[in-house]
C-alpha cells in the first residue's frame, strides 16, 4: 500500500486563490518532500521538510508537518494558471542498502482557472 496519500485527489480553483493539499503517511519518517509534475513531464522537487521541522516556506509555497498526526500540507498562495499540475508528496521509508528510499503518494491534480 502507499506510504503517502494525498488529499484531495483533484482540486480546481480560481487564479489568485490559495490551494491547500494534504498528505498522510503511515510510518515514521526522516523527511517529507513535495514535488510538482506538469502533464507528461518529469517531477520537479519543490521543498523538503525534515521530521524536526514544523513549517517551511519557499516563495509562495508553505509546507507544514505534523509528525504526531503523520500528515503534511502544501499551501500555494495567490495561485496562478502556471501552477496547474499534479503535486506529490514523498516520504522516506528507511535507510537500507546504502540509500534512502522514498515512496510517493498518488498525487493531487490542481487546476487553476484563469
Amino acid at each position, binding site marked *: 500500500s502507499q506510504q503517502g496519500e494525498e488529499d484531495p485527489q483533484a482540486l480546481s480553483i480560481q487564479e489568485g486563490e490559495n490551494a491547500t493539499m494534504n498528505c498522510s503517511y503511515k510510518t515514521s519518517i526522516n523527511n517529507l518532500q513535495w*514535488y510538482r509534475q506538469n502533464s*507528461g513531464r518529469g*517531477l520537479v*522537487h519543490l521543498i523538503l521538510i525534515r521530521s524536526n521541522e514544523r513549517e517551511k516556506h519557499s516563495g509562495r509555497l508553505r509546507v507544514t508537518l505534523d509528525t504526531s498526526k503523520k500528515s503534511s500540507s502544501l499551501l500555494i498562495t495567490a495561485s496562478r494558471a502556471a501552477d496547474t499540475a499534479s503535486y506529490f508528496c514523498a516520504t522516506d521509508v528507511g535507510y537500507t542498502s*546504502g540509500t534512502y528510499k*522514498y515512496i*510517493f503518494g498518488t*498525487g493531487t491534480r490542481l487546476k487553476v482557472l484563469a
Partner: protein
Amino acid sequence: SQTIHQWPATLVQPVGSPLSLECTVEGTSNPNLYWYRQAAGRGLQLLFYSIGIGQISSEVPQNLSASRPQDRQFILSSKKLLLSDSGFYLCAWNRDHGYTFGSGTRLTVV
C-alpha cells in the same frame, strides 16, 4: 553543472520485444540512482535503485531488470515486454535535498 539525462522520450514497442532505457548523470560521481514507473493518472512506483556500479536492489518482482554498468549510467531492461509494462518511466538521482528526475520515457506496449 549537475544534470540527468533520460532517453528516449517516447517509445512504442510490440509485445514480446526487448527494452532498453538509459539514464545518465553528469556533474557528479557515485550517485544513488532510481527507476520509477508511473501508470496513467497514478503515483510513482519504485522499481529499482542502485548505490554503485553493479549494485542493484529490486523493489517489486516483475518483467524488468536494471543494470549499473558505469558509475553514472543506469539502464532499465526487459527481454520480452508485456502489455502491462506500459507506463511512464522516470529515472531519478538522490541528492541531499531530494530527487532530481529525468524527463521520463513514455512506453506504450502494443
